[in-house]
């Protein structure tokens, strides 16, 4: 079976688009599904748990847990990548020591960031300050 040049060109173009797409920011977090902002707004700040957020948004692109002994900020952050007509952006969710979402923020490639929602910090219960297990 033979193909005409236009068909071959089209197949090559499709193949290349897939290759290039694999390097595009939006496609890098292969572990997570496409981020939907309407789902982000359903996160109930101050009560949503890690499991609840994961169920809603899927696995985050990137996380961190600092494990500080000297805590001055929330220790656990989850980040998701998303994109819309304006381009790519990040959604960052911060969790307290009990695993409750406390802050959601959005960052765009220029670094501009805005807090979308936040709940007051709970009383500190950081494990380094706590008693040893009985």
């Amino acid at each position, binding site marked *: 079976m033979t193909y005409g040049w236009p068909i071959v060109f089209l197949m090559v173009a499709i193949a290349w688009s897939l290759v290039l797409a694999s390097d595009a920011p939006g496609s890098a977090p292969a*572990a997570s599904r496409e981020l939907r902002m309407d789902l982000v707004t359903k996160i109930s700040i101050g009560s949503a748990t890690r499991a609840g957020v994961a169920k809603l948004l899927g696995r*985050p*692109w990137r996380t961190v847990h600092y*494990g500080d002994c000297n805590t*001055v900020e929330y220790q656990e952050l989850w*980040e998701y990548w998303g994109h819309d007509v304006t381009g*790519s952006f990040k959604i960052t969710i*911060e969790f307290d020591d009990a695993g409750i979402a406390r802050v959601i923020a959005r960052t765009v*490639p220029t670094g501009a960031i805005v807090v979308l929602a*936040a709940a007051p910090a709970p009383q500190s219960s950081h494990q380094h300050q706590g008693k040893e297990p009985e």
Partner: protein
Amino acid sequence: MRILGPSLSDVLRSPVVLLLLTSIVPVSVLAQECTAGNAPHAAWLYDVTDEAHPRLISEDPADPARTRLNVPDGFNYTWDTISGQSPSQDTHCGIANPAHCRDAGVYPPSLTPQDPPPDPNVQPALPNVGKNGFCNQGGRFGAHSSTELFYPPYYGKLAIVSWFVGGVRVFDIRNPDAARPIAYFIPAPNDTGCGPRGGPSPGPGCTFANTGRDNHMVNTIHTNNVELDDRGYIYIADRAGTGMHILRLTGEAWRAVSGDADRGEQEPSDDHPLPDYPPYGSHVPTAHFDHTVRPQLIPPPPKMLCPVPSASCTDARPAQSAWNMELVGYDTLDGRSTYQPLVVRQGLRYIAYMAHHAGTAINRLTLASETNGTSILDVTHPAHPVYLAHIPGPGGSLDAAGNQMAHVCSGDILPSNSPAEAARKHGHYYLLRSNGNSSGSANPGAESHQIFDVTDPAHPVLLTTVAPQLTNTHKSWWECDTGIAFLVANDSSLASPRADLAPGWHQSGSNQHVKIYNLHDPANPEYIRDFGLVGQQPNVGDAVEGLVTPPTGIHGPISAGKEKNRVYLAYGVGSNGVVEIVDREELLTGCTAADASAHCAASPTQQEMLAPQRGWFTLPGLTLQGGHTSFPIFGEEDGKPRNLLLVVSED
């Protein structure tokens, strides 16, 4: 539950509004580090020539932390105009004279800690953006850690300290009574993205959006730790996921360590012997201090992302900025938050072991999401680092994950008890890393210290777990020439019986003390004893040292090795700081002495805790400062011994 404001929740439902909010709220007003009551965590020089009577030197009466090894908040670099407060008040700004804080570019005075962020629908006034300061970068501002390699050309000449949003700061300590700033480097936030294959790419940045101290999200660099290699390159690691920067000294900072000689950096070669100073060997260089009065330098202000603030450009963060330093190389580390850089010479190659905080990110080599562990790079050519491997961290709870500390020893330097052992280790390199960090009472016993064979750094192989079932592992030290390892951890009382189980130790703050092993044969760890500050042992006597009961946990020990016979232990991390000086030999042999108690190793008596101690002291400001790092500098001045300690508190 409390959200931003009653009208906001509905507004937030609209993605369009989200977009608008993003576009109208400037970075510069979203965070505030200089909230009232924050301590100026800094670095200090102590004269410990008389170990029983350590003495703070290089004091600056105008500095709130009483030290010349400090970085003022504002870019005009004067304490007086920034804080307008007396040195006795251990705060940067906010309490004594908030108006001065605002002059430094800090936020609306009504913004108090723990308040929710301002309503993003309201465009806040831009308070003196032109008079910027580190206060309004939003992230943590203050010291964190110093270099720990006894690299002779810099030893006793420079103090190199990581400073979170202040980048890395270098001080000239040749005249230790009149230390002065001499260089800095502040990386730019990586806003151009973490590409899926490791390089910058269009899209969201590597730098973590992170909280300031008041629920305000910021997106700025946090230089966490700094270390040297034996060529003199300086490596900094970013807590906010911005990656690894490789730096070198220039200008006056380079002349301070080299005279006016050419750079003359050490190149990879078989002709160069492996370093024999700690932690690789016991031959500590001698610093030569002088009395030369050098001018106090005023560091130039950093470059700004918005050189001229305007309505359309309000980003108040520093751009990449350098003074007597320059960038040589960079790697994103796949956007993983990094605690410590360690660079060792393995044969003809220089290999960087980047120790990560807990978390997850995508490995550029496999494109798989992996828990943060240890990134390994070939930095033989520092301008072109090559990412070799990532050893994932432990799975399971994020609380128990991360591998924040790394040490590497050559099997040819580690001592051997037999020719067979020496032959088995010949040509091999071993990575010791903490495994897990803060499981604490939430997940006891899930942590450990591990050893990998990294002879082929692209293909590390797990060799053994030194101490399983630990909690709160952290900043270890490994003497390569003796094999002695000082591991920071705590034992869980839930652990099953084992020879090195030492439950019941007491600590305030971080639940950590020291577990000491001989790892000369990394495959077969030999337990020696547990140790800490007097009052931390399971059976507390009538003495409790330090500022609180029980004494604050240790953060990290540094051994000066066999020759100097001293170990320096910093307790308290960021508050209630204590530094203890210990006789190394008595520490290591105390529990094998003929008169040692039956349970000396795991549960020593008070006398057995006191026996190796040669001195201890608390830090300026008492409870406000902690002992994060205590780096010894052995030297001479006017022909007489003069020994110093560089002590750093974590902001």
